[in-house]
């Protein structure tokens, strides 16, 4: 019996020994192949380092992204400030913070000739505010998105949503949500006050009026939410209108079949702009440059537009054309087709879009202080 057992066992044992031997012999090659993968430390909003965006590039170029995600420009600046130089190779930043990144010496100069500036969809994108200093390029615009009135289409009509006034609609009492960040919310209220292009540049009177306008909205407000909360409350119908967001959230829900939409009201909308910079002291600047070039290529622009975490529009002509070719549905949903109503580029041309900025005459702290008071009101 024992003999039989040992006979039955021995082939398996031999196999195990063979496999182990093979593994030991090939181990140096495996480790060598692992070692050749270049790791790129990325600092970005959530989603930019996820497989749906970078996996294809990683496989083709033998690199591996190690993303560190942040929420908000302040958070990003703090993370860089608290890390040794060279920690982050690639930095994705909101455009309004590029200037501060540059002023603090956190990013490398880039060579404009490496990027498709002659193919940008709008002239503004070629010399985007803060991205250049003394005619030197420090950041490359990757994508954008527009913020306006986001609403549940079963509770608010498209006509009502064409003005921020709809947030005060009596039927929406307790059903208006805020994305919990003062900048886009107060920016929108500033537009509603009629400040137009000078929405961030408010003197004392205008700042006071903005606070009064915003405070008058407080009885309508059902809650203050982060990304997850905003997403859920719109999805389950707890909130029927949302201030401070745009297609970057409703787009994801819309694709999922939820009855929500975002429009740019007549008072105007705000554009968030995301740009790539090369971290100061990065030893992988060439690899990073190659990746940014990929993201600016038609294929990369499509990846960015389709990003699962939150959509954004293409900023190059070739990227837009490619999106229309490979994903017509998304191009139509996000109005990225010439001649469509609410085409993001047409909206900019019509002067209805204002680039997100930081307060000019007050500090961010002033705005945040008021925001805390508002939440407690």
């Amino acid at each position, binding site marked *: 019996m024992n003999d039989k057992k040992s006979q039955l066992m021995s082939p398996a044992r031999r196999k195990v020994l063979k496999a182990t031997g093979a593994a030991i012999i090939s181990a140096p090659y495996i480790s060598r192949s692992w070692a050749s993968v270049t790791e790129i430390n990325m600092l970005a909003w959530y989603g930019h380092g996820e497989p749906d965006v970078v996996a294809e590039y990683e496989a083709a170029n033998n690199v591996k992204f190690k993303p560190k995600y942040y929420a908000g420009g*302040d958070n990003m600046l703090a993370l860089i400030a608290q890390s040794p130089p060279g920690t982050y190779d690639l930095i994705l930043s909101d455009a309004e913070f590029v200037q501060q990144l540059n002023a603090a010496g956190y990013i490398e100069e880039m060579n404009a000739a490496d990027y498709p500036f002659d193919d940008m969809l709008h002239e503004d994108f070629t010399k985007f505010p803060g991205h250049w200093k003394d005619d030197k390029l420090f950041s490359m615009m990757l994508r954008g998105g527009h913020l306006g009135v986001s609403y549940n289409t079963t509770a608010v009509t498209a006509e009502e949503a064409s003005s921020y006034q709809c947030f005060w609609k009596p039927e929406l009492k307790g059903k208006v949500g805020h994305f919990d960040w003062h900048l886009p919310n107060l920016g929108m209220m500033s537009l509603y006050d009629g400040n137009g292009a000078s929405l961030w540049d408010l003197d004392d009177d205008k700042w006071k009026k903005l606070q009064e306008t915003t405070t008058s909205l407080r009885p309508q407000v059902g809650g203050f939410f982060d990304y997850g909360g905003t997403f859920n409350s719109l999805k*389950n119908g707890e909130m029927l209108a949302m201030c401070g967001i745009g297609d970057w959230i409703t787009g994801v829900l819309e694709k999922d079949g939820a009855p929500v939409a975002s429009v740019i009201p007549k008072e105007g909308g705000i554009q968030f702009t995301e740009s790539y910079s090369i971290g100061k002291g990065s030893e992988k600047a060439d690899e990073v440059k190659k990746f940014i070039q990929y993201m600016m290529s038609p294929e990369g622009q499509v990846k960015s537009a389709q990003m699962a975490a939150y959509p954004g529009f293409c900023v190059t002509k070739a990227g837009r054309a490619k999106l229309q070719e490979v994903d017509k549905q998304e191009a139509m949903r996000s109005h990225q087709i010439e001649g469509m109503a609410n085409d993001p580029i047409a909206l900019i041309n019509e002067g209805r879009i204002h680039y997100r900025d930081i307060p000019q005459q007050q500090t961010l702290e002033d705005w*945040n202080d008021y*925001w805390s008071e508002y939440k407690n009101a």
Partner: protein
Amino acid sequence: MARTNFSGFATTWRMPIIVWQVLFFLGPLLFMIAMSFFLVKNYRMVEAFELKNWEKMLTRGYFWDSYILTFWLASLTTAVTSLLAFPASFALAFKVSPSVRRWALFFLIIPFFTSYLVRIFSWYVILAESGVVNALLAHIGLGPYTMLNTKFGTLVGYMTLTLPLVVVLQTFALANIDRNLVQAAHNLGCSPARAIYAVIVPLAKTGLIVAALFCFILSFGDFVSPYYLGGSKPPTLPILIIDTTKSGQQWPRAAVVAVVMMLTLISIAFAALALAYRKRASR
């Protein structure tokens, strides 16, 4: 005269917890206190000894609004949870077999196996206007009621966190009571209600107060429930900490809020423990 003997063996075994507490509680606590006097320049903390952060936070109306709200909600949760938990704990301690008690305690611990955040998000499905509770109420012609993004929602979240723990702690406290004393009360003519009030509660006082204290501490410091079920409307102190750090990276100001919270909790804890271990005045 009693002589205290130094035991190297005992001290060696006590050292890890002492070192742990010094490294990961006392050290960070002292650093947090120091940090509340630091300044922030260009998103970077600069070592300083300035009272600006304290002055800034303590003179803001919204800080005190948040403080009162947080204290009130934590107190309400403690009262409601303790009252709701007591009948269940009483039954587990006195009315069921040891085997049933063991199973019940096991089931009370099970919720802690899953993430608190996941449990809180699951309440969305139950409390939403199109959720389970409103669907059931609709059958009897009631509702829909708004429960999410309200103080009620926050309370539900706090109780999700604390109720199982309070039941467990109360059960242990009640189960350790000498049954002979309860029996003696009955034999001497005590009604069941009086026996609970005059005998059982005083005997389990320490455990009951400790359970309530845990409930208060956990609720007072919880960020998840007031944010996700209360809609941050209005914000509690933990939310205020997050808000403060988000804008301008004002960690020193957030430290002021945190230190005030710690002082409050330490005061409450000392008061509760003093009450728990206070001996009855002899008559």
